[in-house]
């Protein structure tokens, strides 16, 4: 249907159809047969693809090549390689397009489970799996910076898997984008000190896990508002909301994960796991 275009602007013109439903033209990646687009982000697209060599379905994350971001993400996932980390199969570049092949997780993401509502016990078990994945990063002195339901995917077995390492940075590193007032990450899950432009620490991931826990327990994030400024302001100054009476025993856990001050918060995911094991999941 689409004629080949030899003009230099070909890529831009082809992108014209890319957002169209079902009409996206599949880029060609040697070794893979692209089946259908399964996701689209600001910079990247995700395709379900057939990996000819591995004889399996994979998800290909595609984004413009050049900055090595996908290579970096691949290397990080390789180093982690644990039960709750998404499996990566390879990465490369082809005709200006960077690709990363990873495990296809047909179970969707955690947001789907949040929509269905889960009991407190289920929520804690899910939190433990998420914290185990994040703890792997923390043990390597890395910070994920974008822990949210959309990045926690479900294997067919129901196992929770952490994906998307695009924002991972070494703990304590200052990001050029992390200036006061700039949001790095997702506003609903962002820790107050991240908003203030502080260096990334594992405690920021603990905060995001706390938001996640609140969402799993109550079905809604702890802070919401009509405007971005309202949401972010609450992260900065509003106390964590009170849990309903039936799950009030979990309030200390929520409070220690959503503490505004880093020094009052559980320092990393291992501390979350420790407290869970000690008090709630003995």
């Amino acid at each position: 249907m689409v004629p080949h275009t030899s003009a230099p602007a070909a890529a831009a013109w082809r992108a014209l159809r890319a957002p169209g439903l079902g009409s996206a033209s599949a880029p060609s990646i040697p070794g893979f047969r692209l089946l259908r687009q399964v996701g689209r982000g600001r910079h990247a697209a995700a395709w379900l693809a057939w990996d000819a060599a591995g004889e399996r379905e994979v998800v290909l994350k595609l984004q413009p090549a050049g900055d090595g971001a996908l290579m970096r993400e691949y290397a990080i996932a390789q180093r982690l390689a644990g039960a709750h980390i998404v499996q990566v199969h390879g990465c490369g570049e082809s005709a200006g397009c960077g690709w990363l092949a990873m495990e296809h997780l047909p179970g969707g993401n955690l947001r789907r489970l949040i929509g269905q509502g889960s009991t407190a016990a289920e929520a804690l078990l899910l939190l433990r799996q998420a914290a185990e994945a994040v703890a792997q990063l923390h043990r390597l002195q890395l910070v994920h910076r974008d822990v949210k339901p959309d990045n926690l995917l479900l294997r067919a077995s129901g196992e929770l898997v952490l994906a998307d390492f695009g924002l991972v940075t070494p703990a304590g590193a200052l990001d050029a984008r992390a200036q006061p007032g700039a949001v790095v990450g997702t506003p609903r899950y962002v820790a107050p000190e991240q908003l203030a432009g502080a260096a990334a620490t594992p405690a920021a991931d603990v905060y995001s896990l706390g938001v996640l826990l609140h969402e799993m327990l109550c079905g809604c994030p702890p802070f919401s508002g009509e405007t971005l400024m309202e949401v972010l302001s609450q992260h900065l100054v509003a106390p964590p909301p009170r849990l309903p009476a039936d799950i009030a025993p979990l309030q200390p856990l929520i409070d220690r994960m959503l503490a505004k001050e880093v020094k009052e918060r559980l320092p990393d995911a291992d501390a979350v796991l420790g407290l869970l094991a000690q008090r709630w999941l003995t």
Partner: protein
Amino acid sequence: MGQLLDDRPTAEAQLAPAVGDFVSSSLLTSGADGSVANVLSTVATIVYARMHHFSDICNALGADEAASFVNEVRRVLTDPVLKLNGEVATRRPDSILAVFSNKPEDRKPNHAQRGLHAAILLVHEAVQLAQAVAQRSELAHLPALTLAAGVHLGSADLSRRANGKVHAAGEAVEVARLLELTAMDLNWSIATSAGTRLAAVGRAEGGRIGSVGLPDNSFLDIVEVTGLVPRRGSRTPPQVFDRLRDALQANQHARRRTVAAAPAPNAPTSGTHLLIEGYRVLRRIGEGGMASIYLAQAAEGGPPQVLKVLRLDEGLEGDALQRFIQEYALLAQIHHPNVARIHRQDFSVAHAYIAMEFFPNGDLRRRMRAGPVDPDTAISYLKQAAAGLGAIHQVGIVHRDMKPDNLMLRHDGSLALADFGVAKQTSMKITETGDGDIVGTPYYLSPEQALGKPVDARCDLYSLGVMAYELLTGRKPYHASSAQELLRMHVRDPVPLLPLDHAHLQAVMESLMAKDHEQRYPSAQALLDDLARMGL
């Protein structure tokens, strides 16, 4: 068919040029598919035309009849192109891509005229076929056969094969295809670019106008083609032109009768491209999250307007779209001198948009940066902002983001409130914003907004109070080294004292900026009444 062809100049009456006739402006080698072919980059007019509901009819016919129907469609799509010396580049059962070009030695290129002429004939032929189809009782229940065409003059890469076929690619081809979708979306018979119509020097009658967004974020002005204009001295009877005009009309009307038929499988999904009927987009003036902002000229004239365009495909949060529509419907009813006028609210295929008053003089923030505002003017601005707030509060809208940047200045110095609550919200998709976006500083945020407590119209009065302080003193009431500290000041620090020369307004400040909204003025009108009592 023959009599519909206008008297053509003899230069055009030659046969389609043979291979090698075309001298290239630049010769490129290697096609996109890797095979080596001579590719000629040239300027040409591309026509892309497609029959809609073609497959419905095929499926309803028996095998033999379907075959003759397919042949007939093929003839309908091909004849007009060949009659006007066009070349068939890509032909599918229901569509045709045709190239109209000139030899470089031709002194007067006329491919735009020929391309538009062919498109008009295509519609005429299609209407005749559709009438024949509609007369058959077993096909009467089917959606009407219609045709949409896009015509664009631009640069094209042509490669001619030894078998006489031409392959066309490049910008003009992409735009022609986009214009076909556009014609379908807008229920026009033929959509062409304004430039192409211009190049056809008066040969095509123009109807409605619009703008369509191209992938490089530029805009193309488009025109509906409504008829063929006779050449000077033409001997063709005027009835011929009437029949063509009628055909273009009939084709459109037939489509309108076809009520939301399910799209044929494999049909190209029509646009997620930006398409605004009735406006010529002048330039993009802003971008925020999910909304894009353009300056545009309405077809009916008048000063330029601002178009706020919301993409519908980006998964608006919850009921955001519904609220966007409802709130602007309310705002459009407000005729208040201190509220920006909403001229129009409408949908295109993939977008919702509003057309709003444009303020070339900028906002109050710009005015405040330019130098101190004298006290009388400051009070006048405060009153105007309060009046504007009162008007939107009355229809139940809370602004939630009141600040000098959202108060626009008119030529006469009056102020109008703009950038209303939901507009703001929808332009900042809360879950997806991020990755280095700068949010700004919460100088004007009310304590209840900072704490996530229930919010009503009185939060706007708090923000108005902050602005009033700034107008009167030239500085903001609270300053801090971090957003967190600033928010804490909003929540617990007392309202700072105004300088002595404004001391008489301290009580007004306290009633605007009270921490507890129960202690504030109950409404914007209460503030205005208070100021009136003070003789201000």
